[in-house]
């Protein structure tokens, strides 16, 4: 099966990017025990690197040496999956480098698929940025993500029309999780793969049901892209 670079990004913070990245990282781990290589551009150390410290490289995109760590490693390891949790402050810089160095073509030549998951905030600006990025891609797949916990941009005046202009492969809609459910899912030691493998039986049954439904929902949508994580 073709491996890929799973990019999760947005122009805004705190809208579920890392949650999506974690889902991909965990599910790809289930597919291949060696797991994906993960990259985190949030240098605070509080993002995905804190959950997968052994598999994650912190990347400072302002440094060329770190750009090499990311892009060169991805292109030279097409037999492995890669997950990039891209912080909002690095969005423009990332895609600027991406285009300048011809990364899309390079990854394609190496046999690697690029999937850009853009979490759209409920604002006109966010969906407009999504459209600009989507239009700039030629070989990568663009997948808009709507996190219902922060809102649907299509409820914003003018944003629905821009959303309809997106040329996307598949939309992912993340159901809203109640705060008490999220606190379990975002708690220390929780992994989606561990949950699937029954390692979190300490979570109350009712909450496990909701978490499972949430996962099912995401899996089904990702499965619609031809992925088979289970």
């Amino acid at each position, binding site marked *: 099966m073709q491996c890929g670079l799973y990019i999760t990004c947005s122009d805004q913070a705190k809208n579920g990017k890392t949650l999506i990245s974690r889902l991909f990282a965990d599910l790809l781990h289930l597919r291949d025990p060696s797991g994906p290589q993960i990259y985190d551009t949030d240098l605070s150390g509080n993002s995905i690197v804190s959950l997968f410290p052994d598999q994650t490289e912190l990347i400072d995109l302002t440094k*060329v*040496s770190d*750009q*090499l760590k990311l*892009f*060169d490693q991805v*292109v*030279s390891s097409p037999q492995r999956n890669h997950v990039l949790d891209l912080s909002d402050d690095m969005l423009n810089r990332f895609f600027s*480098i991406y285009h*300048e*160095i*011809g*990364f899309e073509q*390079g990854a394609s030549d190496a046999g690697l698929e690029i999937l850009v998951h853009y979490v759209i905030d409920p604002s006109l600006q966010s969906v407009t940025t999504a459209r600009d990025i989507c239009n700039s891609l030629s070989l990568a797949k663009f997948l808009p993500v709507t996190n219902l916990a922060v809102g649907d941009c299509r409820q914003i005046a003018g944003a629905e029309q821009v959303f309809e202009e997106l040329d996307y492969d598949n939309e992912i809609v993340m159901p809203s999780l109640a705060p008490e459910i999220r606190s379990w899912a975002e708690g220390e030691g929780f992994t989606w793969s561990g949950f699937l493998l029954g390692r979190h039986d300490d979570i109350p049954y009712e909450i496990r049901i909701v978490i499972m439904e949430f996962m099912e929902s995401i899996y089904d949508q990702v499965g619609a892209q031809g992925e088979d994580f289970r």
Partner: protein
Amino acid sequence: MKHTVIMVGADKGGVGKTTIARALLDYLQRKNILVRAFDTENPRGTLHRFYPGITDIIDFNEVADQMKVLDTVNTSETKVTIVDLKAGNLSRSLDTFDKIGVLDAARNGEFTLGLMHVVGPSIASLDEMGEVASYTNGIPYVVARNFINETNFFEWDEKTYKKYFANLPNAKEIEVPKLNEMAYEQIDLAGTTCSDFVANRNAKGGAGNFSFVLRGYAKKWRSDIDQEFEKLELIQSVLDSARETTVEQTPSNQESAE
């Protein structure tokens, strides 16, 4: 096709003369133009390191070496000559050319002589333009502003900027864009041409092991500087002449003519 000699030079050192000579050679070779080069950085020869097969190291202060370049323009199989002048040789070479009639020969159309004057962001470098101006009448004169180290040319000081750049009626300006430092160093270290580096080929023509990112930056830089070269009539005339020669030499054309 009339022979074209392009001298790349500056009196000040460290402004990027050889980088631009390399970029020009790279560009012309990609356009399938037969080109030869002379490196006046005697005896070391930086340009020669990157283009050993087509570059001779010469001492342009020696008459015998001047003859190597100038007395062969009408007999050489190549139709373009690039001369990479070492620091301090620009004014002196032009003065010699003026005295022995080379500049007049070029003005009279015996061959094309172009001057690519590389300037850096220093007053000393910019002052050279005034000194060189007296020789450039009737000669294609290009001022190459070297931005490779991400600098500016006193654009923040309009008075100074205008003093140097707004009073060059016959000069064509090009900008040498910034190249990422690591990419520049990697190419330098590898001793390859820019195009070989981009294609991931080492100096011996074998497979290279160069960074994808740095090759990407080099490719973008090459594309940017190509656009700058293509703005120049001097370069366009070389390309046009090469195209005409190719058309003249195709068998079908010869048969038609017969």
